[in-house]
């Protein structure tokens, strides 16, 4: 790897135009305990875009290899990753041929036992789904940044997070960042959770493109001289693969490829274990993120449950409702997989009305909530407002929906 001092591979730092005594930025950093990084180190407040927040997160993530194919609005973050490669914070980085190639290559890198990062947006995610859906079963703790955008026709490059619904049942860990701060914090937490030996799964951190990636917001970052511990490839649910001596028999003659009762049992037990591992990751996210949900005004009768950018709009609606003397609760869902069923139930068990605003046509969060709260929660759960295709969700819209909801459900 070009950015590893003393590497035996062909390319060296000198080949890339660096002075002979150049030391990669990553080698000047000190490894720090993840809990120390997440909760104890001092933080400096910056005012930066979501793409820049992703860069600062990657700088501290001790990434061995990044592979990506550009697509709006992801391109800017991976351009920033290029700067990190140049500075020596990412050891290897290249542009894949397209998304299927990119996501297949990153899987190979992760199987080899290194920390691997990729990123995409909307249609790129859709193109790569064949490879992506194989990651959890392969037990590859890849980190993927997903800057959401429209995928359906008429096509647009505006924010819309319907693509997240395609990841819900893959066995991937899935976080949804509200703002630039989350897009700094969540990838670091996701990396550490995904690499735990009882998890060993890929993790996706989604963010609503443009609204966060291309706009500035306050972000508190830890000192750049500290980084996460490296990945221990051997410390996984499945061993890292020796890519120079690959176990060819696995792909040539796997029992799983035979249509018989053994293959069915193998597939079933393997998938059960994948989804059990998703649930086991909850305890790590809980301590890294300070909870899988955030609750505002827990004693309210009216609640808004939201994830991503919709949380920011709901937060302001809650503030303005408060100015007018009405208490509205808010549940921010940080983790979509694992889904924090019990925590949400506990938060809204006294609620009378629950509103679920979303930036997508499908209303996937509303469906998730209905599925897990059905028969357990007395509140009426209303889907809306839902905007998509890049449409905006003004605070007034949420407040109008709340007013209507109060008339409908006395």
């Amino acid at each position, binding site marked *: 790897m070009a950015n590893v001092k003393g590497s035996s591979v062909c390319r060296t730092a000198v080949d890339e135009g660096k002075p002979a005594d150049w030391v990669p930025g990553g080698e000047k950093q000190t490894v720090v305990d993840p809990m120390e990084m997440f909760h104890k180190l001092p933080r400096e*407040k*910056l*005012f930066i*875009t979501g*793409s*820049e927040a992703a860069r600062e997160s990657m700088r501290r993530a001790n990434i061995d290899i990044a592979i990506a194919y550009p697509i709006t609005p992801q391109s*800017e973050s991976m351009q920033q990753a290029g700067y990190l490669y140049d500075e020596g914070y990412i050891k290897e980085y290249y542009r894949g041929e397209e998304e299927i190639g990119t996501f297949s290559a990153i899987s190979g890198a992760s199987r080899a036992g290194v920390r691997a990062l990729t990123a995409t947006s909307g249609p790129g995610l859709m193109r790569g789904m064949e490879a992506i859906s194989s990651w959890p079963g392969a037990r590859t703790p890849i980190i993927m940044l997903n800057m959401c955008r429209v995928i359906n026709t008429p096509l647009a490059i505006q*924010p819309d997070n319907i693509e997240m619904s395609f990841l819900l049942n893959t066995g991937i860990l899935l976080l949804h960042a509200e*703002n630039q701060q989350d897009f700094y914090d969540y990838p670091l937490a996701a990396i550490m959770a995904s690499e735990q030996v009882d998890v060993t799964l890929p993790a996706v951190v989604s963010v*609503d493109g*443009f*609204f*966060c*990636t*291309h*706009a*500035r*917001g*306050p972000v508190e970052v830890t000192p750049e001289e500290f980084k996460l511990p490296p990945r221990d490839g051997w410390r996984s649910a499945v061993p890292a693969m020796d890519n120079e001596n690959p176990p060819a028999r696995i792909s040539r003659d796997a029992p799983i490829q035979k249509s018989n009762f053994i293959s069915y049992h193998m597939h079933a037990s393997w998938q059960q274990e994948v989804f059990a591992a998703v649930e086991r990751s909850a305890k790590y996210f809980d301590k890294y993120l300070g909870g899988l949900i955030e609750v505002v005004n827990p004693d309210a009768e009216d609640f808004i449950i939201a994830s991503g*950018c919709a949380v*920011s*709009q709901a*937060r*302001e609606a809650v*503030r303005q409702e408060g*100015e007018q003397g009405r208490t509205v609760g808010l549940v921010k869902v940080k983790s979509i997989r694992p889904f924090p069923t019990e925590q949400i139930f506990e938060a809204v068990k006294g609620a009378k009305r629950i509103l679920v605003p979303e930036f997508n046509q499908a209303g996937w969060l509303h469906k998730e909530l209905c599925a897990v709260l059905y028969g357990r929660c007395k509140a009426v759960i209303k889907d809306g407002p839902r*905007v998509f295709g890049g449409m*905006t*969700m*003004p*605070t*007034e*819209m949420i407040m109008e929906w709340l007013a209507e909801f109060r008339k409908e459900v006395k």
Partner: protein
Amino acid sequence: MLIQDNLLLTRSNPSGQGGTQFLYRVKDYGLAALTGPQEEISMIHWEVEVIKFTTPETAGFEVCHSTELADKTLKFYTDKSLNEFLQKAFQYFEELDLLEKMLPQES
């Protein structure tokens, strides 16, 4: 980063188009500074309105284009230039408040 003096509220863009809004308040006047998403980082800027608050208790306001400070939406391309403007605007709002109090009040 913008200065924190007289900062009343930092919130996501309430119009829902992404970005962050800073609300500053000095007496009944203030400034709403909004930075929204742009295609390129280099295009990011501030759009600033002089505002007049409608109540003492809440953050409700109306855009005010009738002061000597500005009769239109202002644009700033750096935090430094906006911070300089903010400092001068705060002084202006203090003086404006004094002058308005000197005028005969309508009964």
